[in-house]
């Protein structure tokens, strides 16, 4: 792997140049961290402290009031029950949507790489193009269909929509991985009498655990962070966290409670940050894989 690093340190190695490089990198790190710091410190301040201090000033004492308000009693639009309920809405939406789309995507990738049929490549291409569509172009008919189908629960609607529009990515990840697995493996298993499902569950699925990880991380962040589908296909108390956060922040009534806004924003960010920290390496790999392929 790249001895470029070696080469360059030997070249630009000594002295002043290195300091400049480190200085730039550290400054950039501060710029990326600044909003997180500002959000955290603001969420622990009282409103008086916010008015008296500035962005970078530290909170006087750890004050958890804003967090309590954000979770339990902040006003998101009309009702004032905090974002707690919406947080669990998002959980109820994300977990089934991620599991279903990952499992189906794994099967699809398996079929598209090891059980090709006439038209399977064309279908894969059609699916691939779908990853680039702006969703605005499908939401009007989707709203009509969901209305006609009579799915009343916001969670049910969102799970369905996220599964449908997540399948393209999950299929892509698994197909691109299974293509690299030698066909001989499957052929040998078939000669031994293993069938379609047996080969999948006993051979392919176990060796694709890293891809499963990538897929779950990707889908979790995508679905948790979605706003467009959430705002269009859910209503009232069934809305997901992102919509509730937006309602909270853009509420025009009453005194603006910036500390509560920031606490709610962090609550909305926690699950994906957690996933990112825990699965960091896979996250990057997933993003780059998804990106480079397509």
């Amino acid at each position, binding site marked *: 792997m*790249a001895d*470029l*690093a070696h*080469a*360059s340190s030997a070249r*630009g190695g000594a002295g002043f140049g*290195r300091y400049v490089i480190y200085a730039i*990198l550290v400054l*950039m*790190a501060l*710029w*990326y*961290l*600044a*909003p997180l710091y*500002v*959000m955290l410190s*603001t969420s622990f301040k009282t409103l008086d402290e916010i008015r008296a201090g*500035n*962005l*970078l000033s530290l909170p006087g004492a750890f004050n958890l009031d804003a967090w309590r308000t954000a979770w339990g009693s902040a006003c998101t639009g009309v009702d004032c029950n905090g974002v707690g309920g919406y947080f669990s809405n998002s959980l109820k939406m994300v977990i089934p949507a991620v599991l279903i789309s990952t499992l*189906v995507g794994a*099967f*699809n990738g398996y*079929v*598209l790489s090891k059980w090709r*049929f006439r038209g399977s490549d064309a*279908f894969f291409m*059609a699916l691939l193009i*779908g990853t*680039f569509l*702006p969703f*605005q172009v*499908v939401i*009007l*008919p989707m709203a*009509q269909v969901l209305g006609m189908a009579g799915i009343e629960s916001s969670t049910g609607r969102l799970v369905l929509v996220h599964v449908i529009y997540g*399948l393209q990515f999950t*299929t892509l990840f698994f197909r691109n991985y299974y293509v690299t697995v030698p066909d001989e493996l499957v*052929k040998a298993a078939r000669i031994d009498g293993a*069938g*379609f499902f047996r080969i999948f569950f006993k051979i392919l699925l176990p060796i694709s655990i890293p891809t499963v990880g990538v897929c779950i991380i990707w889908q979790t962040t995508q679905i948790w*962070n979605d*706003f*467009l589908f959430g705002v*269009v296909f859910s209503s009232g108390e069934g809305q997901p966290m992102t919509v509730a*956060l*937006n309602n909270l922040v853009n509420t025009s009534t009453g005194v603006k409670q910036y500390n509560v*806004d*920031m606490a*709610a*924003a962090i609550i*909305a*960010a926690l699950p994906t*940050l957690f996933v990112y920290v825990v699965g960091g390496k896979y996250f*990057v790999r997933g*993003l780059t894989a998804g*990106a*480079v392929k*397509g």
Partner: protein
Amino acid sequence: MTAARQGAPGFSLGRFADVILPKLVITPTVIACLVGFYGFIGWTAWLSFTESRMLPKYEWAGLVQYQALFANERWWASMQNLAVFGLLFIFVSLAVGLIMAVLLDQKIRFEGALRTIYLYPMALSFIVTGTAWKWILNPGLGIEKLAHDWGFSGFVFDWIVNPDYAIYTVVIAGVWQSSGFVMALFLAGLRGIDDSIIKAAQVDGASLPTIYARIIVPSLRPVFLSAFMILAHIAVKSFDLVMALTGGGPGFATDLPSIFMYQHSFTRGQLGLGAASAMMMLFTACAVVMPFLYSELRRERRG
């Protein structure tokens, strides 16, 4: 596909398992794709040729919605905003991402930690990013006040409420969110370059900047394409970031086609116009992405 042919012709369990089962498994996805994408695009296209307002109507009305759209000043303002935001967002993200990747590639200590810091914004929702930056850019309490506290009492930084500059605040937040990811793409590309070419150039006495300018950066072409496609895609569908950051305002200063589409379709009861604007968004996305996708695929076939 080949081993399946051994069984007896006609129906048998083996034939079912080998030929029908795989197709059965993938059928739901085929239906979802054909209906949920291509069918719905057709449906939206049809709606855009009707006079639908609050409720969809399906009688053909020709190009009335497109005429209305093209006569709508707010639409053109939103397209212009998209052009300004899109170009700056893509260009700055690419530049920042590339520079940081090159710097991080110089055998840096704590590379892992720095990379993690650069990348974490990508894990956040655009709604969260918008909320955070809305607060930081708030003239009364944010950066402007910070500068005042530090003694620069004449400092003004009110872009977010200034119609002439508000769109640039969207660029700032967008770049903050996406440049780390571009950096990761470029870094992966840099690590994939064959060392022997670089060694050869070094033997020939090329300096490090020359090696980067002549050999390394040009060989990152595929990464440029991927990054460009992804950023362009993010720019065209950008909706949540603006909703949380500025709500499209002040006035319509940060209005984008995605917001135009949403408001006309869902809050103003103009389904036909919303559908027409959605079709224009699709064309915009295609116009940007297709040439790149095409060249990408052609190269893949050749190679």
